[in-house]
């Protein structure tokens, strides 16, 4: 039976979608709004929406008290670094699984994904001890390794789904044409999988950027990214909502902008294979 979209159905669906969208967006909106309020107005009840004295003093103070750019730079290095390292492993792994599958390939994929279900805190102690003994605490290198390993299952999974869509014939043609394995991957597979790789990288950058558990636990200052920057506003002097909001806004702004501009790519990437 064909499903007809009635006007009423369409309207109610749109309304519903908007409500869900607004619900999800509201906390971010509120955070941004609060960042422009004074500390007093930030906690006033009832809360004020637009009619307050807009101020930039929170931002000024945040910038004065801590070096935003140092944290931001760490965030960029960690996010991009872990993504690039991850890509090297994920591409080769997904290549093997997509084009040379065995009976156990599906199981291996599921198992990889299942590691994401384990609470990270379960391995905190061993990893912390390893970091301590190997002198990796508060180093960018150590954190890149942890973030890359943490996101590897998702990267492999996404790339695998993409690679599955590429006809094996084309890779075999490259092999007949004399391409060695690295050349086959670099000149033939990767260019064909550009959209998939782009969305995989994007998602990974976002996940790494937002990762707080490991970044907070394994860094103190040198390698601390923006998550640590926000965290530093949440505890020491009680709760300063406005300043915390300003810091958070600064921290999420870059990723929000990237996400906004690339949302088409992202949605396509995440639903690839499911819709088609």
């Amino acid at each position: 039976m064909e499903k007809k979209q009635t006007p009423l159905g369409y309207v109610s669906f749109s309304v519903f979608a908007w409500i869900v969208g607004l619900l999800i967006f509201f906390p971010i909106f509120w955070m941004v709004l609060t960042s422009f309020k004074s500390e007093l107005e930030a906690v006033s009840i009832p809360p004020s929406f637009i009619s307050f004295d807009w101020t930039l003093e929170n931002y000024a103070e945040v910038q004065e008290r801590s070096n935003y750019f140092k944290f931001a730079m760490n965030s960029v290095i960690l996010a991009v670094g872990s993504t690039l390292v991850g890509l090297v492993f994920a591409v080769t792994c997904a290549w093997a699984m997509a084009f040379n599958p065995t009976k156990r390939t599906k199981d291996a994929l599921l198992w990889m994904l299942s590691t994401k279900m384990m609470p990270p805190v379960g391995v905190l102690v061993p990893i912390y001890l390893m970091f301590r003994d190997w002198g990796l605490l508060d180093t960018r290198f150590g954190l890149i390794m942890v973030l890359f390993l943490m996101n590897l299952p998702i990267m492999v999974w996404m790339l695998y789904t993409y690679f599955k869509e590429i006809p094996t014939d084309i890779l075999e043609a490259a092999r007949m044409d004399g391409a060695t394995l690295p050349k086959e991957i670099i000149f033939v597979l990767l260019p064909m999988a550009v959209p998939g790789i782009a969305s995989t990288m994007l998602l990974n950058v976002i996940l790494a950027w937002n990762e707080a558990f490991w970044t907070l636990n394994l860094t103190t200052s040198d390698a601390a990214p923006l998550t640590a920057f926000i965290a530093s506003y949440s505890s020491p002097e009680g709760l300063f909502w406005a300043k915390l909001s300003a810091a958070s806004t600064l921290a999420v702004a870059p990723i929000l902008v990237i996400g906004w501009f690339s949302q088409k790519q992202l949605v396509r990437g995440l639903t690839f294979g499911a819709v088609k």
Partner: protein
Amino acid sequence: MGAIRLEKVKKTFGTLDVIPGVDLDINDGEFVVFVGPSGCGKSTLLRLIAGLEDVTDGKILINGTDVANEAPAKRGLSMVFQSYALYPHMTVYNNIAFGLKMAGESKEVIEEKVQSAAKILNLTDYLERRPSALSGGQRQRVAIGRAIVRNPAAFLFDEPLSNLDAALRVNMRLEITGLHQELKTTMIYVTHDQVEAMTMADKIVVLQAGRVEQVGKPMDLYNSPANKFVAGFIGSPKMNFLGGELAQKHSCHEIGIRPEHVAVSTESGEIPATVKIAEHLGAETYLHVEADGYGPMTVRATGEVPLGEHDKIFLTPEQDRIHRFDAHGLALGNS
């Protein structure tokens, strides 16, 4: 130069014995066609020669050297895939040039070879296009161009024409035959279309269930098939197989007679029959008949014959065109 020799080549996928053991000799410059029903292992055998699958056992000799464990690129063969398998992100020029680039040829050499291949294949105007902007026939020619420029020891084709429409197929068939005459390079061509096999091949290899049933020139296979399978597979419409009295008369288990080797008469003949369906093609007429005591048969009459359903006719097999088979389906010598 490309003489290829298979010695006891075996291939199993897990427990599935796809190629139980094939011996085959392909001479330099020969056009060899592998035919057989779907799933008989034609593609697998071709891919074994190409190196895209590893042999389970046996030797593959190209010009005398065993390459069974070499990478595809080391074997110096080119392959044209059924799906064309062009690189979608590259222009036609780069598609054709890719193999040369991988071989580390200089820019000038590449330019020259690509241009000359494009000329042979009428692709000169399309060199800057992407494969997605080409028709099926053009894509096929790019795939062939990609194969030619590498100057291979042999070309391997896996059902290259099956994605084309009938008219284009005939054209490309002639083009490939022409190409073979021009280049004189060994070609191995897989198809399940026996018309392609008959028209193109110097030598046909008939496969069934991974076994070579018969190897020979097209007309040899047509005139003296080694067994019932080959007899039924080569030739269209299929050969008729008759047992009973007629077989006894020729002192064998079963006789085979091709539809074109049966004389049709409305007055007298060896086998009385009733027409079920008459297919009038103009130049010839196919009669699907029910022969008394022998069951359904197909016969071919030349030209237009005024026969239709329920008409009574008489069939007489041409005596020297009768094939005799024993109980195992093996051909016996002429009686």
